[in-house]
């Protein structure tokens, strides 16, 4: 039965946790009450990306894009839009949009984006295999099984130039080839969905919005390397993604797309889910394998590489979620189509979780080679509250801070590494003038020290030493010699650590020292924190000329450090003050000075 109209409701985590579930129910109810069940279908899709303005509702075929929709708006959407055909302009992104321009084409956030990985996110109902199939789903698998030899599949992927999206950018085709040339026998295909980078949720959204694309890609990879078993290693913190994968696996088995003799061919492949348990180091290949084997997730030296000796000693390919999501598209559209997108060394697109001090937080996909300026200012809508841009961090705790002078650098693997950062998995955190560079660096080090497995000394001891120096600097107890020590330790860690975690843990330190040395020196020499974050370096006092004696500060002070009569200027007792800043926030007359 074909419907006349469709209401797509974003089922991404941000929208769902923002009353999106109630909204979905309210829309269904309103459609029923208005007698439209035969004409209108309400669909819960994957993430539409524009998390900042959620929950998002899209009406097809008109392509109307409604933002910040509340459950109580359901009635008016159905009565006005669906019944009378009148757009509800107060729910549009731009309330003054003309009637002809009500879709995403009027929204800057979606311009410059190009969707390969997220092609189905926000378009199909992730719980329905038929909707995936209707959009050419499993067609690439069929093509691989019946028109291509495993060798051809690997060639196609190699020629496309696809590189691993988990962070390091190793060529995917080459990885597959290493495993394929190993003697036949038990081999494994593993999907790394242990997205542990704080501030990143690309893989989560892909799995929640389009789970079948990952199953299809894993099956194709299994065919190419000669594996009959696949594991998806996914964070236990992502229950919705796990649930959608479980549903998808069950459906694929029912349709003969997983299991014995797939689509009647002589190729058999099945997939199991294995849960992670909150260890960042398990994103590292060898640690991930140890975890699937049921052990502590400690990395081991490479070589031997997993493609030669991996899970239970057998050849194993490990690909990240985003890498895999590209595979079916490459097989269907061909390597030439794919390799035309991007830069000379980095092909295709990259998904970023754009967050931090930015107007439009959300999930975006752009061609490789897009500049940071385009991402932050065109797509992201610039910095919040008109503040100044200070730095962007790619690669999370393993990446580096990118200062304003590189805003126009085209983003690809090589360029990012040249300027001291890494591509990483796709977290892109924007910092403004209110963020203190040594403080944010300390945050990252705190993370990596906590997550270090402790197996090798450079990471275990070096990370702790770096963190101590950073804590001293933020407390106003740092010395200039500390900087030399930090540089030496950073160098040792990146050269001598056993795995990727330790080798990259000092990147935030190295890059921030390289570009923001003046801020470190201010903390050490002038004992000042220009962002006002490092409490020990701050002092508060009241400007007696501006103070009108409203007593707001005295009432809010948690330690009673502010004294003064009503309508008389107040005074802060510096000895009692704990520098919490509440008086500064509450004063309506700008009478509290922070320096």
């Amino acid at each position, binding site marked *: 039965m074909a419907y006349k109209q469709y209401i797509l409701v974003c089922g991404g*985590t*941000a929208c769902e*946790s*923002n009353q999106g579930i109630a909204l979905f129910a309210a829309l269904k109810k309103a459609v029923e009450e208005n007698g439209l069940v035969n004409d209108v279908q309400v669909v819960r899709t994957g993430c539409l990306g524009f*998390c*900042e303005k*959620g929950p998002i509702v899209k009406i097809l075929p008109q392509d109307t894009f409604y933002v910040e929709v509340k459950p109580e708006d359901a009635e008016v959407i159905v009565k006005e839009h669906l019944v009378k055909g009148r757009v509800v302009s107060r729910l549009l992104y731009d309330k003054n949009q003309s009637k002809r321009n009500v879709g995403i084409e009027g929204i800057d956030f979606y311009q410059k984006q190009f969707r390969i990985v997220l092609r189905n996110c926000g378009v199909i109902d992730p719980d329905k295999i038929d909707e995936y199939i209707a959009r050419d789903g499993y067609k690439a698998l069929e093509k691989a099984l019946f028109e291509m030899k495993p060798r051809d599949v690997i060639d196609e992927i190699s020629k496309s130039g696809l590189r691993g999206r988990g962070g390091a950018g190793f060529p995917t085709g080459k990885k597959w080839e290493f495993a394929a040339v190993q003697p036949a026998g038990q081999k494994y295909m593993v999907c790394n969905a242990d*997205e*542990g*980078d*704080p*501030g*990143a*949720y690309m893989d*989560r959204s892909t799995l929640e919005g389009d789970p079948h694309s990952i199953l299809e890609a894993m099956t194709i990879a299994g065919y190419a390397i000669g594996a009959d078993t696949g594991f998806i290693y996914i964070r*236990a*913190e*992502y229950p919705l993604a796990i649930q959608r994968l479980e549903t998808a696996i069950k459906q694929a088995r029912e349709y003969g797309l997983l299991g014995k003799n797939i689509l009647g061919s002589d190729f058999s492949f099945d997939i199991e889910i*294995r*849960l*992670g*348990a*909150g*260890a*960042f180091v398990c994103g590292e290949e060898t640690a991930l394998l140890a*975890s*699937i*084997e*049921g*052990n*502590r*997730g400690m990395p081991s030296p490479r070589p031997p590489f997993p493609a030669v000796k991996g899970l*239970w000693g057998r050849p194993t390919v490990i690909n990240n979620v985003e890498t895999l999501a590209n595979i079916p598209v490459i097989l269907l559209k061909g390597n030439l189509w794919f390799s035309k997108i991007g830069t000379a060394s980095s092909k295709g697109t990259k998904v970023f*979780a754009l*967050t*931090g*001090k930015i107007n439009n*937080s*959300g*999930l975006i996909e752009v061609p490789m080679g897009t500049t940071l300026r385009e991402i932050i200012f065109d797509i992201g809508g610039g910095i919040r509250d008109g503040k100044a841009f200070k730095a962007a*961090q790619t690669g*999370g705790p393993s990446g580096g801070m990118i200062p304003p002078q590189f805003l126009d650098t085209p983003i690809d693997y090589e360029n990012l590494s040249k300027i001291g950062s890494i591509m990483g998995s796709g*977290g892109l*955190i924007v*910092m403004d003038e209110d*963020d203190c560079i040594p403080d*944010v660096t300390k*945050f*990252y080090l705190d*993370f990596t020290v906590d997550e270090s*497995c402790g197996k090798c000394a450079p990471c275990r001891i070096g990370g702790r030493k770096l963190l101590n120096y950073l804590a001293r600097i933020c407390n106003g107890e740092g010395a200039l010699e500390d900087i030399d020590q930090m540089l030496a330790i950073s160098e040792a860690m990146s050269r001598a650590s056993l795995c990727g975690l330790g080798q990259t843990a000092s990147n935030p330190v190295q890059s921030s020292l390289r570009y923001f040395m003046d801020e470190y020196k201010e903390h050490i020499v002038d004992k000042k924190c220009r962002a006002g974050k490092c409490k020990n370096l701050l002092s508060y006092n009241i400007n007696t000329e501006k103070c009108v004696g409203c007593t707001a500060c005295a009432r809010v002070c948690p330690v009673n450090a502010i004294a003064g009569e009503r309508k008389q200027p107040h005074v802060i007792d510096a000895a009692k003050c704990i520098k919490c800043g509440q008086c500064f926030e509450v004063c309506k007359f700008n009478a509290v000075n922070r320096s």
Partner: protein
Amino acid sequence: MNTAEKPAAGLLKLTPELKAFIAEWKSKPGNLIMVLHRVQQNFGYIPREVAFEVADLLDIPLAKIYGVITFYNFFKLKKPGRNQIQVCMGTACYLKGGEDIIQELEGILGVGLNTVTPDGEFSVEAVRCVGCCGLAPVMVLNGEVFGKVKTEDLRGIIAKTKRG
């Protein structure tokens, strides 16, 4: 294993469902983490006496089980509060004031991180990115996500949870 260390009867025990789950997974390699997840789902944490039972049923040394539990952040050794609060300390939430949320909660509940209030009602923990960075700062209360939380909202949220 030293049987003398086994806890006395009357303590928490594996339910028949959990035993069936373990039987189903016993022959699969790498089963331990999946079994521990299921145990924690049931009890809210991994009670010591249950860990003994798991060791017996899977035929794995207790030391290995504790090695795994203590390696991973997700597994808990202590019983959490009836209402569990997780405050996200991912980078986006950190930049947007996740620390202030924790401080305010500590003030309201009168306990520090990873401690249960004396009445057993609440426990607060700081967690890694929950993947809702667009909503930062984020906290999760009994599985429900609260986005763009403000410190002044917290008293109301806690009071409502107590009544409910």
